[in-house]
């Protein structure tokens, strides 16, 4: 019996690269919940990378990739864990693109991915806590940590001559992590945070919250919340009561729906969005257009997450998590030939021939630290009721 098992194991390992197989990739995103409007485009982005790899025919000796979707929700860690359990145990996925939110990602990583040794790359979880979480080298993210975003926001504010600011955040992991990061970076640069208070989403009235923010005072109000939720209520109420004129908008607050809801009052406010400069974004936008979906927030990061997994598998010559997890950093960073979006076939070719690549992808991937994006941000300014790009950071 023991002999048989060893034999079986040996053949599986040996036949891995040689024999064409069907590799399943889990796409575990928040298809329901507070980010449901974003999840569809993210999944399409990840599946675009898989389709590209399949078309090339160069992946692991002619293997094909199949996408299996699962719903991680955003706020229900139990549902996310159950969905991940299904993907890994019954669908037998080799790796997971996901989850969408920080809380769900942590739960899936600790409860399912780590015990089963499955690699996860989240395109959009940004909590600073995930940088230091115990992950056995299995967790990566193509989104930058909010620690980096806090630094970018603080620098942006100081450059605009802001001396003091009031800060309010949505009462969850994302809001708390981001607000702490903004506050500590801003204070390190000599600014003053007059108040750092939480707000609950889903309330009808935010005038009391705005009253205490206004009493604390400050040149600007930083709203680390969600644009369709409490963040909008805070800004509306602050403008109605004339408590603040200028708002600083982190990534969760930038979007067309906020401009449509508030209108003129937002003129002069500024914020940041993850995004990279130059040709890669345009190339990716053209690809997305052809595939028939939109370049939503984090769609490029999702494409990159799926692409990184597949390229690392190619580099390791195996779809086994324990084998290819160590190659993710290699394919993502220099040295090697730069691989742009749409170039996956060439990347696979180079890796098959034993060469090295430096994956750039749709979001200018550069993995640092424990495997997270270094973070490119697009600084935006609201002028005449429309958002304009100021520069890239």
């Amino acid at each position, binding site marked *: 019996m023991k002999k048989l098992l060893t034999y079986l194991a040996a053949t599986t390992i040996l036949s891995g690269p040689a024999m064409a197989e069907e590799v399943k990739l889990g796409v575990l995103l928040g298809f329901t919940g507070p980010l449901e409007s974003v999840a569809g485009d993210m999944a399409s982005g990840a599946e675009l990378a898989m389709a590209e790899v399949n078309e090339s025919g160069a992946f692991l000796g002619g293997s094909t990739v199949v996408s299996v979707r699962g719903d991680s929700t955003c706020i229900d860690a139990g549902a996310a864990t159950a969905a991940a359990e299904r993907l890994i145990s019954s669908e037998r996925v080799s790796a997971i693109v996901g989850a969408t939110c920080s809380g769900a990602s942590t739960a899936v990583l600790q409860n399912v991915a780590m015990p089963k040794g499955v690699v996860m790359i989240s395109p959009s979880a940004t909590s600073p806590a995930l940088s230091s979480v115990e992950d056995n080298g299995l967790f990566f993210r193509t989104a930058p940590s909010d620690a980096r975003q806090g630094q970018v926001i603080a620098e942006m504010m100081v450059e605009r001559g802001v001396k003091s600011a009031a800060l309010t955040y949505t009462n969850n992991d994302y809001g708390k992590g981001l607000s702490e990061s903004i506050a500590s970076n801003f204070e390190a640069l000599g600014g003053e945070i007059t108040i750092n208070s939480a707000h609950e989403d889903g309330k009808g009235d935010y005038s009391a919250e705005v009253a205490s923010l206004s009493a604390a005072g400050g040149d600007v109000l930083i709203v680390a919340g969600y644009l369709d939720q409490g963040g909008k209520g805070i800004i509306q109420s602050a403008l109605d*009561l004339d408590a603040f004129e200028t708002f600083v908008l982190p990534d969760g607050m930038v979007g067309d729906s906020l401009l449509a809801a508030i209108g003129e009052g937002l003129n002069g406010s500024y914020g940041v969005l993850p995004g990279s400069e130059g040709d890669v974004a345009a190339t990716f936008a053209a690809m997305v257009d052809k595939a028939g979906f939109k370049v939503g927030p984090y769609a490029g990061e999702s494409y990159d997450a799926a692409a990184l997994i597949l390229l690392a598998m190619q580099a390791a010559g195996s779809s086994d998590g324990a084998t290819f997890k160590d190659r993710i950093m290699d394919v993502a960073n220099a040295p090697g030939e730069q691989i742009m979006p749409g170039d996956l076939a060439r990347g696979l070719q180079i890796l098959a021939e034993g060469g090295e690549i430096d994956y750039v992808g749709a979001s200018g991937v550069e993995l640092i630290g424990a495997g997270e994006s270094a973070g490119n941000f697009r600084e935006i300014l609201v002028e005449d009721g429309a958002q304009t790009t100021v520069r890239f950071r």
Partner: protein
Amino acid sequence: MQDYANAALLLTNYLVVPGIAYGCQLALGALGVTLIFSVLRFSNFAHGELMSAGTMFAIFATWGFQAMGLSFGPVPTALVALPFAILASIAVVLLTDKAIYRFYRIKRSDPVILLIVSIGVMFVMAGLIRFLIGPDDRTFNDGARFILKAREVKDYLGLSEGVTIKTSQAITVLVASIAAGLLFWFLEKTKTGKMMRAFSDNEDLALLSGINPERIVKLAWVLAAVLATIAGTLYGLDKSYKPFVFQQLLLPIFAAAIVGGLGNPLGAVIGGFVIAFSEVALTYAYTKFLAYTLPPAWVPDGLVQFLPTDYKFAISFVILVLILLYRPTGILRGKTL
């Protein structure tokens, strides 16, 4: 002198104006709860969802008017749509009464059973509302937004503080006063109103003197539906319509009704304002106010806030507990629970 003017404007802007508008909304809600309690003798937990349903109908009617291309200048369309919404809510309460409450009333069930039944009605209504209009946030105020804008007041007076008065706040106060005034007139002056009060005081004696109980009950439901629809629509106009908010509103509304004295309409109005002003005043941060009124050396560093704003709803709870402990009948003599 200028400092005192600034301090007064500051408090008006952040405390008085929002407090009055919120107080009116709570008072209308509490009036409905109190009416049902005095006539049907149970606490109607479905009242919040009735407000929600009424607002939903008002939004549907507003959309209908807008689709027909009608608009009414500075007056929000929802105000014109209000009568239609009231009719729809009346149909809803009469149907629920006929289908559900009447069964328990005829059996002369305990008030506690009716209370539990009303919780069931609340959940069913909440579900139906989410089916019909969805769980999203809706803004349906299409009239003029402001009567006074803080920025303009500042520039006009040359002071550093201003006052904002939203059209929706003014409409709230106006409509709520008219509705409450009509209700008091009805209860005090008309024959039917007197019958209703008699029925509320002593059901058996009222029956002996030939009052038709079913008619009084129906009337109470109709009045509750009218008040709930007005309260909900005003709240929605002032803030925005979210189906989830009304279950949160239920607590301050009940607190207002009990603090004022359950079953006492005037008490409900007073209770509404007591709760509204305690919530606003206890969570307000007074630093800026003190900075205007005190000599600079005395101004404290902190926010001078009694409670963080997160505890807003806890205030209704605390007041409720204090009232039940020390004056269970409420400020004005009402019934004990």
